[in-house]
Structures are given as C-alpha cells and as structure tokens.
C-alpha cells in the first residue's frame, strides 16, 4: 500500500512538473493582474494603468494586465496581502513603492520585508519636493530653515503619512539642517497634504514632484527644492537640496515598479525581467506619462535589486534614531 501511494505521488509530481515546465514555455497564457496598494486615482494607480496599457501587444507580454487596488494603512494592507496570500504563479504581479515598504518593514508590525518580494523592473522615480503656498513669504530653503531656527518645532509642514517617502525626506531635512520641525502626516495621502499647503493650514509641505508640478502649473504653489541628487527634467529651474547646502541624497525618491512574490518560478521571473522593461520603454507609454507629468525612470531587475539593498541600508541608519 505504501509503495502504491509513493508511486502515485511520484506520478502526480511528474505530471505537475511536466505541466509546470510546459506552462513556463507558453507563459503567459491568461490575463494577469497587478496589485496596487493605493486607491484608484492615486499617483501609483494612475501610473500603473499607463505603463501596463501595452501589455497585451504581441511585442510585450501578449496578455493584458488588470489593475486591482488594495488600499489601506499607507500601503501595508496591499503588501501584507501580496507577501502572504498572493499566488506565486507569475499571474499575480504587484507594484512596489520604495522607500515606503522598506521603511514600514523596518518600523515593524507588517508581514513583509525586502526579501519577501522579487523585483522585476522599475518604471518611475518621483522625487519628493518642498512646496509652499504661492503667497508664502518663503522663497528658498534658506528662508524655511531660518524660520525654523527662530521658531524651533514651530514650522508646520504636511506630508502623506509616516514611514513613506515624504516622512523620510522630512527626517533628512531635520538632520541636514539641524533644526526641529513639525511634520504633520495627512490621512488623505499626497492630495490631502497638498490641500493643507494650498489652504494655508500648514506653512509648507513635502509632496510628490508630479503632483507639485501640476499644482505649480495651476498657480497654487511655489516649489523650493528637490530631494534628489540631480535637478528634474520637469523642473529645471528648481535647485536640489544639495545645491542649497543641505546634505540630502535621494533616499526619499519614490521609486515605482513591478515585482512578484517570492517563490515565483525562476523561468517566469527571467521572462518578465526581460520583457517588462521594454514594455515600459514603449513610445506610447512614455508619451502618456509625460503628458500626465509623471517622471519615468526605467531600471532592469539587477539595477532594482541593487537599489533595494542600498535603500534598506540607508533607511535603517536614518530610522534608527526614531
């Protein structure tokens, strides 16, 4: 009897093995989904919809990708689901936001870390910027820091929440300028934080470059500095923090890309890693992204892996003081 069961199980394994090998060659055979851990209409959701719109083309994956939203708790809900419940069959992709999920995993209380996921490719990099209302007396970061020095802990500025890119940028600014600031996290994300700046509820704010660019076009805000290593193509006139004398690197830049859960078969990862970056590079995608004011930054799997490791190190140092 034992032998019979053993034989049966070997046969079964052989069968599934063959099916799997076969499946990888033809992968993908059915439509896929991309989990976005922010709500419909947010910047991540919006960009994910654009960069996946050509997935069904023959030169890309040949199968469409549907976006599913699992918003909540600054992305924790979606990534928890992705790390613990998503099927690692190559048909369930996820969008990542760096530094958000790494910072949250360092903070604790979540079921994922950088090694729960396998990166595929990066599509965008949205640096944080410092904004003030259009009628604000501040015209440079020096004005902001001087005000903060005169009123320790009295400079209120908004951001999208705790342990997200904006919060990291705020911590870096406090550290580099040696001042105490009052960071006010907003429960409505970047849009809510921007409203607080425009309405004058707070004196300034950290926000996404793409949203800030739009708000400036509408004449509602001034952008005083970029939390990145280089100036951005969308805002060639706005200096970086480094240029203004604050030692701040690109640790808060919001990188967005595609990943799969750990345990996805290697052939599938390889295939995705090869095709997805070319899909992002499609001319139509680039055109739509530019029209929407969203900076693109395509990176392949190896580059993303390196970037994740570097971020984890910086963030651990930065958050250790909290």
């Amino acid at each position, binding site marked *: 009897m034992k032998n019979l069961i053993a034989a049966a199980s070997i046969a079964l394994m052989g069968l599934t093995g063959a099916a799997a090998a076969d499946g990888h060659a033809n992968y993908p055979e059915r439509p896929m989904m991309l989990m976005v851990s922010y709500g419909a209409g947010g910047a991540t959701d919006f960009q994910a919809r654009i960069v996946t719109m050509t997935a069904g083309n023959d030169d890309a994956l040949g199968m469409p990708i549907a976006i599913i939203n699992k918003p909540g708790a600054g992305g*924790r809900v979606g990534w928890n689901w992705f790390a613990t419940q998503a099927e690692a069959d190559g048909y369930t992709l996820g969008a990542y936001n760096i530094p958000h999920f790494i910072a949250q995993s360092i903070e604790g209380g979540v079921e994922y870390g950088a090694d729960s996921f396998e990166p595929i490719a990066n599509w965008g990099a949205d640096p944080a910027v410092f904004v003030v209302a259009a009628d604000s007396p501040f015209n440079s970061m020096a004005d902001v820091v001087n005000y903060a020095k005169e009123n320790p802990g009295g400079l209120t500025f908004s951001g999208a929440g705790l342990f997200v890119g904006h919060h990291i940028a705020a911590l870096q600014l406090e550290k580099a300028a040696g001042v105490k600031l009052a960071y006010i996290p907003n429960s409505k994300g970047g849009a809510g934080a921007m409203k607080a700046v425009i309405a004058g509820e*707070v004196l300034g704010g950290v926000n996404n470059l793409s949203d800030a660019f739009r708000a400036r076009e*509408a004449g509602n805000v001034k952008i005083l500095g970029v939390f990145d290593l280089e100036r951005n193509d969308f805002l060639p006139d706005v200096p970086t923090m480094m240029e203004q004398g604050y030692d701040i690197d690109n640790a808060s830049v919001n990188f967005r890309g595609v990943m799969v859960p750990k345990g996805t078969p290697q052939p599938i990862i390889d295939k995705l890693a090869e095709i997805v970056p070319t899909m992002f590079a499609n001319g139509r995608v680039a055109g739509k992204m530019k029209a929407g004011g969203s900076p693109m930054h395509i990176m392949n799997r190896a580059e993303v892996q390196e970037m994740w490791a570097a971020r984890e190190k910086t963030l651990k140092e930065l958050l250790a003081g909290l």
Partner: protein
Amino acid sequence: MEFIYYFGDVFTPFNFMLLLLGTVGGLILGATPGLSPTMAVALLIPFTFRLEPASGLILLGAAYTSTVAGGAVSAILLKIPGAPANIATTLDGHTMAKKGEGARALQLSFIASAVGGVFGVLLLIFLTPLLAQWALAFGPSHLFWLAILGVTIIGSLDSSSVVKGLLSGCIGLWLATIGFDDIMGAQRFIFHSSVSGGINVIPALIGLFAIPQVITMFAKGRARLDAEVLSVEKHPISKAFREVFNRFRALSIGTITGSIIGLIPGVGGQIAGLVAYDQAKKMSPERGKFGTGHSEGVIAAESANNAMVGPSLVPLLTLSIPGSPTAAVLLGGLLIHGIFPGSDLFDNYPEVAWTFINSMLIGQILMCIFGLYIAGLAARVAQVPNNVMAAVVLGLAVFGSYSVQNSMGDVYIMMALGTGMFFLERFGFSAAPLVLGLILGPIAEANFIQGSMIANATSSIGSYFFTGPLNLLLIGIVVASVAYSGWMELRSRRYTTKDDAVAKEEALS
C-alpha cells in the same frame, strides 16, 4: 455664459450617444446593490484612453451623475443603498415601497435628483471661483466640528430609541477604528486577519443593509406569495412633478444643504443626504411622519445627494485636488490626456472643461427622463418572489463586496456585520446610525489628531479648535442641534406611551 457656446459639442451624434450610454449604464450599475459610483467610473477609465478628451469626459460625467441617482433604486425597492449617499433615501423611500408606492417614491426621487443636480451644476458653472475659496476654508478643526455635527444627528436618525440610536452609532465609531490607524500606522483591534485593512465602508454598507433584508425574507418562510403580494400602484408622472414642487421646503433644504456640504473635500458626498434629511425633518411641521414613508424625506435626501455632484468637483477643477475617491478617478481621466486641472483650466481647455460640465447638466435631465421611464417597471421588483429575491441579493452582496478590492476578507466582514445587524435590528438597533458612525469616525479622529499636532506646533489646542468665525459657527450649529433634539425628545416622551412606541415599531417592521 461661455458654457452655452460649447453646448453644440455635447450634441454631436457620437458624443450624444456616449452621453446616453453613460447615463443608462450608470443608472443600471448604480441600481445594482454593491456597486458604488467610484467603481462605475473607474470601470470606464480604460475606455476613455481611446476617446478624445472631451468625449471621454462626457462618458465619465454622465456615468458619475447617474450612478449617484441610480443608487436610489435599490435603496427604495430593496432597502439596500447603492452608496453611502443613498442611506437617507432608504428611511422613507423603502417604507413607501412597502406600502405599494414604489413607483411614486422612484418618480419623486428622480425628479428631486434632477432638480438638485441641475442646481449643483449651475453653481459649478457660475460660482466656481467663489466656491473654491469656501472649499479651502475648511481646515482640520472645522472638519472635526463638522464630523461632530454628524455625530449629533446619529441619535435622532431612524430609531424610536435615542439611546439605542446612539449606541448603534458608537458601535459604528468603534468599527471604524479597527485596523492600522491612518496616521501613525499603529495596529488596533486586529482580532482576525480579514480586518487588518480596516473595515471598508462599501462592503460594510452592503452587509449592514442587504443581509438583514435577506434574512428577513427567510423569516417569512415558504409562505404563499399571494398571501402578501405587494401591490404596485400606478402613479402618474405629472402628479409626481406637482408633489415635488409642492414640497418646496424639503426640496430647497435638500438642494442647498447638498450643495454646501458637497463642496467640502473628503466629507461631503457621503453625509450630504443624511444631513439634509435631518434638517428637513427638524424644520418640517409634519416631522412625526418622517420614517413612515413621508415624501419629504425622499425629496430632501435625493435632491441633496445629486446637488452635491457639481460642487464636489470644484476642488478638483480649480485646485487640482480630488475631494473624493470618484473625483480622484476623474482626475486620472483628465491627466491621461495631458490636461492639468487648475484655475486656468477654463482658459486653456475651455472646450474640454465646458463640454464636461455641460454633459453633466444634460446628463441630469436624461437621467430624470430614463429614471421616470423605468420607475414603473423597476417598482415591479417588489413582486419578485421572496425566495428568488433573497438568493439574488445574497449573490450580489457577495460579488459586490468582493469586487470593491478583490478581497475575500471584505466578503467575510460583509457577512459577519450583516448577520449581526439582523439580530441587533430585532432589538431596536438600526443600521443607518451605525454606518454614519463608521463614516464619521475616521474623519473626526484624523482631523482631531492633525489639528492638535498643528496646534501644538503653533498655538494651543484651545485657540485652534475654539476660535475663528467658522469654528464658532459650527460649534453653534452643533449646540443648537443637540439642544433641539433633546427638547423634541422630552416633548415627545410626554405624549408617547410605551404602547405607541411598540405600535410604531410594528408598523415599520
């Protein structure tokens, strides 16, 4: 008057066809229990990729307008609000349907929706710059007081017992705190992995209203249908029109309250209907009839939740700030075509902006025409046998709550809350205050915390929350509302005996 110039664009054959499609599709999706306006609009975004910007927005505008009104259909006929906006409609609308006046209730609701909706869009057209200032005036302290104002309504809403109404509200407020808290990311009351993401309002709404209905249908057993067949009385449309305009007080309270509250980013849409219903009730000489199938209740609630549609887009169109999830999806629809909303939107892209707004204006009227046309037919839903209806609603509730965020946890939450609510309802608790608590809790909490953080950094909590004309005005309204409710409660207690309360309860259930 620039907008008249662009009316032509709405009436090109292709655009008009899209408008019809958006309106009819929106009505159907809105009327399906479990599908919210946000989902309907998000569903259409991919189609707009391929359309011209103006055409795409016509489709979105029409769908947005009519899903909000469509939600009234299931609210009235099945006591299942399509979206939080329609909760107030169930209170009198469903009672009317039970009396066989489903067709009348639907007609009233569509006409009131159209009147409110047109008024709201006209406000958007003529007063946008002014309204934008008003939308920005609401900071954390004001939103906090506004949420408290909502809480004061809880006690008097749809319950013959103020204490149980408040207790239901407290349960809702507590349910809202479950999950990771939005600001600090701390975990609260996560006793099962399904609730780690918090309790989403839409699945909760579906469960709290739909499941008790399903179980109530079970409770009737295998009774012969003809034993209690609901008659569906025919109701002439002209009479409905006359009635809506004769109820001018309810109509104007609904329209004005909806327009004002709809404007406030992040709060408006969900509570406009309830606040308007409460105001209409307090100001009506026939306030005792509210909740027993009184037409003023339907008119106030529905005119308010469509009046909110136009103003709710003001922060989006002028400041590029989406004030609601639906507005956020619409923003995506604009960005995809490289159109940045902002104060200069009307100068840079007048053909897009005005066509969009015009399409909502025409959409309101088309929605009313189609709504009236289907009202008579839809009311026959009441004649579907109990056994089929119960099974259909259960299936829709499961699929609907799953599809909000593709989450099995939401389905479990829906069913657990719904089953609990059925039993609680049998003991005098009610779902409307519970949902109101669920909606208001996070608004009150987040704004209180943000406000006190700002206050600590700048001045003191006392001066931040208790000074300034808008704070004082809101506090005044809160105090007046509480005092009025208390006074009414005392007065009615003197005249109602226990037997009356029981009799009223029996008439309702």
